[in-house]
């Protein structure tokens, strides 16, 4: 083997996968076009996904705090896993309080405004694709006096201290906070002197005159978490993007 043959071999064996796996898909995914609503749809024009919250900032903090180590954010198609059927992970199921089954697989538009998609490394905690919608739903069903933001901040402060919510109608799916394996993120909170009513402090009792105040990082993170609503993305999904397993097909 001559040196020239060696270098040409390396260029070919590495260059081809480099182009096919990295460069071409990267450029293609960079310029994903808008998806039009179909002819049969009651909507016209292109689908514009909407997402509110401090997403870019919160997503970065989500990564920096290492949340993606235990929480995934992907609902895989059924050939790759049972995610769609697991509780309210993929969207809300149809029930007496929910009119329509909105479960679906993850689409590329779900990650808009983020720098990197937090697919996740392991699933020790539940998938967070639909965390925002799921949490609102549970709080409403259980007539909780807490706002989703308060619940999420409490979960970050001490995952074992937040109440456990049951959703009897949809089976065993609950937020099992009482035996959560999630480590408390006390670094995102500060112990402060309570002034007046202690607005914005967490509803936890520590020593008199002191309160637990969430930092700005914690608020940005929670704002991002609550934006994770993978059912409709603000506007109804066009058929081309909706992979709801139970959605009736047009010809049926």
């Amino acid at each position, binding site marked *: 083997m001559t040196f020239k043959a060696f270098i040409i071999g390396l260029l070919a064996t*590495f260059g081809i996968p*480099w182009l096919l796996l990295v460069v071409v898909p*990267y450029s293609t995914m960079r310029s994903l076009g808008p998806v039009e609503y179909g002819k049969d749809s009651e909507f016209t024009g292109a689908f514009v996904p909407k997402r509110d919250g401090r997403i870019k900032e919160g997503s970065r903090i989500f990564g*920096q*705090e290492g949340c993606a180590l235990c929480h995934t954010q992907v609902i*895989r198609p059924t050939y790759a896993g049972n995610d769609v059927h697991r509780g309210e992970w993929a969207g809300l199921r149809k029930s007496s309080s929910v009119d329509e089954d909105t479960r679906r697989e993850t689409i590329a538009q779900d990650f808009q405004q983020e*720098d990197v*998609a937090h697919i996740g490394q392991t699933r020790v905690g539940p998938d967070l694709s639909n965390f925002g919608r799921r949490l609102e739903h549970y709080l409403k069903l259980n007539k909780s006096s807490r706002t989703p933001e308060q619940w999420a901040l409490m979960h970050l402060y001490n995952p074992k201290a937040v109440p456990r919510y049951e959703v009897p109608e949809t089976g*065993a799916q609950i937020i099992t906070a009482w035996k959560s394996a999630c480590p408390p993120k006390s670094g995102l909170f500060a112990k402060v002197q309570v002034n007046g009513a202690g607005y914005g402090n967490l509803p936890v009792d520590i020593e008199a005159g002191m309160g637990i105040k969430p930092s700005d990082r914690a608020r940005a993170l929670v704002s991002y978490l609550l934006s994770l609503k993978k059912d409709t993305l603000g506007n109804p999904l066009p058929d081309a993007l909706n992979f709801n397993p139970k959605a009736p097909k047009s010809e049926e």
Partner: protein
Amino acid sequence: MAENNSTADSKDVVLRSSIDRSLRHPVMFLFASGALWLVLSIVLGLVASAKKHNPEFLTCFSWLDAGKVDAAHMSAMIYGWGLQAAFGIIIWLMARLSRKECTASGIILWAAHVWNAVVSYGIIRIMMGEGSGVTYMEFPSEVWPLLLVCYTTITIWSLVQFQVRDAGHVYVSQWYLLAGLLWFPWIAVTAWVFVFLMDGHPLMVAGVAGWFKGTLFSLFFLPVALGSAYYLAPKVTGRPVYSYNIALFGFWSLAVFGPWAGMEKLFGAPVPQFLPYAGAASMILILIPAIAVGYNIIKTVIGNSEVIAESPSLRFTAAGVVLFLAFGGLSVLLHTVPALKLTQFTYTGYGFDILGLYGVFSLCAFGAIYFIVPRITRREWLSRRFIKWHFFCSIYGISSVVICAIAGGLSQGQGIEDLSQPFGTMAERASQFSWGVTLAWAFILFANFFFCLHLFLMWARLGRRSSHPTLLDAHHPTSPHGPEGEVDNYSSASA
């Protein structure tokens, strides 16, 4: 004739010792600081694993949060230990195989210091919650170009040495090292540009980071480990490599299959569908180079069981090669589509990564270090016992980490897929197995504490002043390294 030979031999000995002397400081610094990072990374791994079964463990320190400590653990292992050990091996082996003295050891030494400073800075930023937040590329974006500059400053001299070598046959190890040297910057620059500089789709950013992690192992760590194994196996046994054609085949099969690795982490995500399948296929096909290399090296050393038992270098290298075969076999089992469902988001991936990084790469690197250090310090290893502890605790620890993480991960994955089980069941299953992982890291920590200590004693030139190599069997009739003082004088491997 005989006289000519002995003149040539003595010239050779002089050349080799002058090469060793020229590289003494940078190589020793890279190995010693690498070993220190390894100990630190194992401590961090121990904390990360303990947090999996005891979430409240050390929560008073927010810089030790579960996610951050895990990222710091892997980064310390890859950039602190792995790459530095690889640099030491590359610059020494390349100088020896190209038969050129190193003329830039001062510059390399400086670059190695900067490398350590940059890695420390990156790890501190990760622990302060100021990393990049990109899984598998957690260092903040400014760290990567600095690491690349250090990399170039450390390794470019090896490319130069290869270019100016006296014409002649290029040995297998040189292909591996040269290819690794060229692949690494290509991979790292691509990943840095696409992940941090360009504004890509978030999914492809995650995909490229996954590809970076996959190819960093298959196209940098593996070639260095195999290059070292191809050097040591014939050198220590005094026999030529079993088959040149199999070596050629093993190298090119790695070059063909390796670059596709990594994107299997995106299985089921909305990216072009062939990307994760290509990644999984690449991981399955890695069995082919594993079998080729494993067969070739085992055939080279087999029949010399005494040498394997006595020589620390060969014992570690042989164990690394055997674990590479295990890695290839497991890779086939864990990357088929039905298995990928279970393994994608479980501890299995961690166990498998550690098998590659510690089981394959690090064991081969230990083998090389046990061979190189006595030559550059001109002292022999002090303690047979330390080496034995290092070997047995490493093997026991790595087997336990891998078995616990893979078995726990599969059971965890089965729990996620089984819809009749509440989700909490699988988290419990995973946490039970992580006890085993914690215990196993404790063994590996014990092993490497003594390895690190031993290496520092050697660095302080407190090794034995003897020309008898340190062998693991006290009563050996003849030296398996050949005649005294002629430790590496076999033409079979020095071509």
